[in-house]
């Protein structure tokens, strides 16, 4: 009986609609870069560095799988700009 109940519970869990899983910061930054129309060459980035100034602006630097390093500026009011670092 216990076996049947446990199997039913397992089936119920398996039949539940797929819950959206959280993305990692590397994936998030890579998606942001691509969303801004910049080539990245993959779904994750590496060598992430993040700095925040007193005004609330955030600067992120990350390297894409294609070797290109990008600077992502997030202003205090939430505007995002992506610029490639030469």
């Amino acid at each position, binding site marked *: 009986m216990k076996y049947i109940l446990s199997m039913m519970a397992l089936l119920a869990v398996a039949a539940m*609609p797929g*819950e*959206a*899983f959280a993305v990692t910061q590397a994936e998030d930054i890579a998606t*942001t870069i691509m*969303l*801004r129309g910049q080539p990245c060459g993959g779904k994750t980035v590496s060598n992430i560095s993040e700095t925040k100034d007193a005004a609330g602006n955030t600067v992120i630097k990350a390297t894409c799988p294609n070797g290109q390093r990008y600077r992502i500026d*997030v202003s205090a009011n939430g*505007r995002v700009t992506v610029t490639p670092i030469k």
Partner: protein
Amino acid sequence: MMTITRWMEGLLWREIVAALALLLCMCLASPAMAGGKDERNDSPAVHAQAVGSVASVAPGKEKERSPEGGREGKVVKAHEAKVESAKKAKAETGQGAKAESVKETGSRSHFNMNVLIERLKKCNAIGVFTKLALRSDALDLVDEVHDWRKHRNHVTISEIRARFDGLLLKVLALLDNDPVLSRDISKAREDIWNSLLEVKA
């Protein structure tokens, strides 16, 4: 020998009957020759299909398919059935469109932009920076609509609509891991567009 000649005669007669039936069918199928009312508005495709199907059958094959002379009646009945089914389909599509429009108006009454925005904010399928990037795009679009309303830019409404569609496409592509929210946003496309036009920036 006698039997062969009789058989040949029978074959000839069958060919003649089949050809006559074919001619009669063609006359009945074309409204100009039939002298009846013009059913072009009802179903021209059905007419063309019927005529085509009748014309495409070679007399030799006709003989093989229907040796009896009753083919004429069958074709006419089939044609009438086609016309009737086309009329029914037309009526049904009309009813379906009405039902859809009613359903749409019903769904519009349930539309809430703020709820959708909150769901997007809480969604785990999109990262924080991606959400901020999308928000920037949305704010740019709102500014553009505002400028268009004030005649400050030379952008047409169709161009703004194209940008809106592009932005929505981005959001839907990013919501690949949250199909429920993706479906709801996709359903509310026109409502979101209308609310965007109503925004007073």
